[in-house]
């Protein structure tokens, strides 16, 4: 192993002037040499601290060892035992809070760039086109329905297909991928990568049905009672935008982050009028919030022609929930960060367009239930900021439709999330499992993917034991 190498190998990024004019991917990825060089920094710890910090416990030293040897395809194989979406997760995981955050090297030096390595080998596999489809050993007769094609649904579908089940994915939108296609922009996660994953899962025999809104097109009960689906996985995410409920929030030019990003990403609004769906981006844009969604909205606004983009956040830099890398990218690109301010009202012009956001200054008080210090308004400190466009990115909650239209499916009253057993993902309705954001509330891609994967195990167990008395009690009480 030799000497400790304190600094990680930098990953090339598109220069700022170039990237703020296009939606091309910002991070360019490692070359083969760079990947090997970075891999060689890893101590291959016998008791690695990075592994338990990865939500799906990838054998990190196991795959890095193969990179050191230059066998990138073996490395991917190791990762895929635990994570079927490495090209996605390598790009979007909040690594500083997960694997990399717990790497021993990070105590004194820079942690190993695990995410970049994961991304590198996944892209390498795609480039050399060696993605083999494992033949299914035993075919199973049971049909399973997957509702929603976000990471949780995609992974659940691929796992069940590999076990031999007949799997159908129902998606209400016209493209598959959930937040990966309608939320996270191209410059962070190129759409081709998501397409590639969907195509791979299709090759496993999974049927994909778009324009199918479960709860309206067919109810879940109809899918089970009339259409012959013996088990269902609900991975419908948390897509219902939240607003603050303050005066003026319905003025023209005030978007929810979901609408803004959907118009830009799913509908390709940034290519209007080549694509038909318009999006209004004025010269001065304010984005409310400081999570990943807010960063994506702010950087998309910049790329869509805004001259000045501001993040307005009621806490401080320390409490921001966005990935560190993306907050840094946003700052590099010239996004202005205004901390400790909270909108209290919007002012419009005579045609109803938003003209100013009125904010109040905040200070931090005692920590709240999330452990972050609670922001408290400073009375009399209100002032106005001129704006042309506002994007509200203060969070999303699950849509109530699936629970409202399904017999026996229960939700958490306050949070609106579906109730499901933490280990088995079994819901309050027999044969129905749920995971991802619809259960946890807005979280991360890897947690959703992990939920889909683990749920598949229990769906398999359920289908093999469905005639056992009390099987559902067993699954909901374990």
């Amino acid at each position, binding site marked *: 192993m030799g000497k400790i190498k304190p600094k990680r190998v930098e990953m090339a990024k598109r220069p700022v002037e170039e990237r703020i004019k296009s939606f091309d991917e910002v991070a360019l990825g490692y070359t083969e040499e760079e990947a090997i060089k970075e891999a060689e920094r890893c101590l291959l710890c016998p008791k690695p601290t990075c592994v338990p910090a990865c939500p799906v416990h990838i054998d990190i030293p196991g795959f890095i060892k193969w990179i050191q040897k230059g066998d990138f395809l073996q490395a991917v194989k190791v990762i895929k035992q635990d994570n079927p979406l490495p090209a996605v997760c390598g790009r979007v995981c909040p690594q500083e809070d997960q694997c990399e955050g717990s790497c021993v090297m990070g105590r004194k030096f820079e942690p190993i760039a695990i995410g970049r390595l994961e991304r590198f080998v996944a892209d390498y596999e795609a480039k050399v086109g060696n993605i083999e489809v494992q033949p299914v050993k035993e075919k199973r007769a049971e049909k399973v329905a997957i509702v929603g094609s976000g990471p949780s649904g995609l992974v659940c579908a691929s796992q069940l297909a590999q076990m031999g089940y007949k799997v159908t994915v129902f998606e209400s939108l016209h493209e598959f991928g959930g937040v990966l296609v309608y939320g996270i922009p191209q410059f962070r996660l190129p759409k081709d990568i998501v397409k590639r994953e969907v195509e791979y899962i299709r090759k496993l025999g999974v049927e994909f049905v778009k324009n199918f809104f479960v709860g309206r097109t067919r109810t879940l009960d109809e899918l089970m009672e009339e259409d012959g689906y013996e088990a269902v996985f609900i991975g419908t995410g948390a897509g219902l935008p939240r607003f603050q*409920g303050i005066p003026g929030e319905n003025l023209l030019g005030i978007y929810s982050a979901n609408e803004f990003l959907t118009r830009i990403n799913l509908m390709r609004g940034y290519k209007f009028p080549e694509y038909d769906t318009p999006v209004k981006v004025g010269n001065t844009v304010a984005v409310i919030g400081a999570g990943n969604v807010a960063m994506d909205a702010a950087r998309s606004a910049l790329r869509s022609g805004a001259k000045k983009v501001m993040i307005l956040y009621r806490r401080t830099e320390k409490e921001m929930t966005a990935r560190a890398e993306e907050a840094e990218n946003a700052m590099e690109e010239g996004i202005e960060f205004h901390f400790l301010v909270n909108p209290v009202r919007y002012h419009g012009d005579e045609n*109803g367009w938003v003209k100013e956001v009125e904010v109040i200054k905040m200070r931090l008080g005692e920590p709240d239930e999330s452990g972050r210090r609670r922001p408290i308004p400073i009375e009399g400190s209100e002032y106005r900021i001129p704006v042309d466009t506002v994007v509200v990115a203060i969070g999303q909650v699950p*849509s109530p*439709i699936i629970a409202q239209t399904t017999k026996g499916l229960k939700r958490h009253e306050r949070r609106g999330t579906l109730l499901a057993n933490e280990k088995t993902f079994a819901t309050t309705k027999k044969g129905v499992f749920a995971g991802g954001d619809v259960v946890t509330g807005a979280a991360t891609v890897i947690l959703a993917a992990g939920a889909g994967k683990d749920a598949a195990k229990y769906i398999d167990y359920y289908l093999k034991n469905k005639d056992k008395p009390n099987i559902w009690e067993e699954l909901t009480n374990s």
Partner: protein
Amino acid sequence: MGYKILFKEEVGPGAYRMIIEAPHVAKNAQPGQFIVLRVHEKGERIPLTISKADKENGEITIIFQVVGKSTKHLSLLNEGDELQDFLGPLGMPSEIDNFGTVVLIGGGFGTAVLYPMVAAYKEANNHVIVINGARNKDLLLLEKDLSQIADEYYVTTDDGSKGKKGFVTDMLKELIDKNVKIDRVFAVGPVIMMANVAKLTKQHNIKTIVSLNPIMVDGTGMCGSCRVEVGGKTKFACVDGPDFDAHEVNFDLLMKRLRMYRTEEKISLEKFEKEIQNG
């Protein structure tokens, strides 16, 4: 899954009826619900009311008015062509019951939305009065269909070229003044028309439902584009509506929000018309 156009006819100047092959939509469709379609790969998602659902043959009828690029493009498609996307049924079904005497008012494209409601109210044994309004007689939609099912059928035109000269509200007022006992009003059409109907019926304390048509994107409750203000609260028309209590709706806001993309809509239509000219 292709969404094939099985039938197309012009039902008025710039207004078309189409029958689309969509068995999975037809199966559960109820009056008052709508679909969202995309004409082509780069197209926008536009909402249109389900005019008729034929469950047996798996067919959906839509009636639409050409107002911009997407509806123009749709109108140029022919029988045998396929739509890119077709999602539905969406929205809450209308509340249909035996209320007694119901006045159904349609103006402009709203008449297309009105048609399935008239049939549904009739089926629920209501005494159905229809007021069909347009700027002039050439723009009147669905005259034959509506007059056939309605118990009473009235026409108003702004220029008096057919029926009563004036607005639909003038006709409604006449009925009210004649002391016709009206248990419920359902109105759909231009926002200004719905707002005026609401104003009139509020004075006379007649329960009134309007079907709102805000700009939509997904139609499934995940973007908030369709937000409307009802009773001082923000609602998503695609999930909570499109039907709302007319006396609670903020029509002024709806009118403003519908104008949000006016510049872009013009650019889009002009570009498309140029493309058609150049073949």
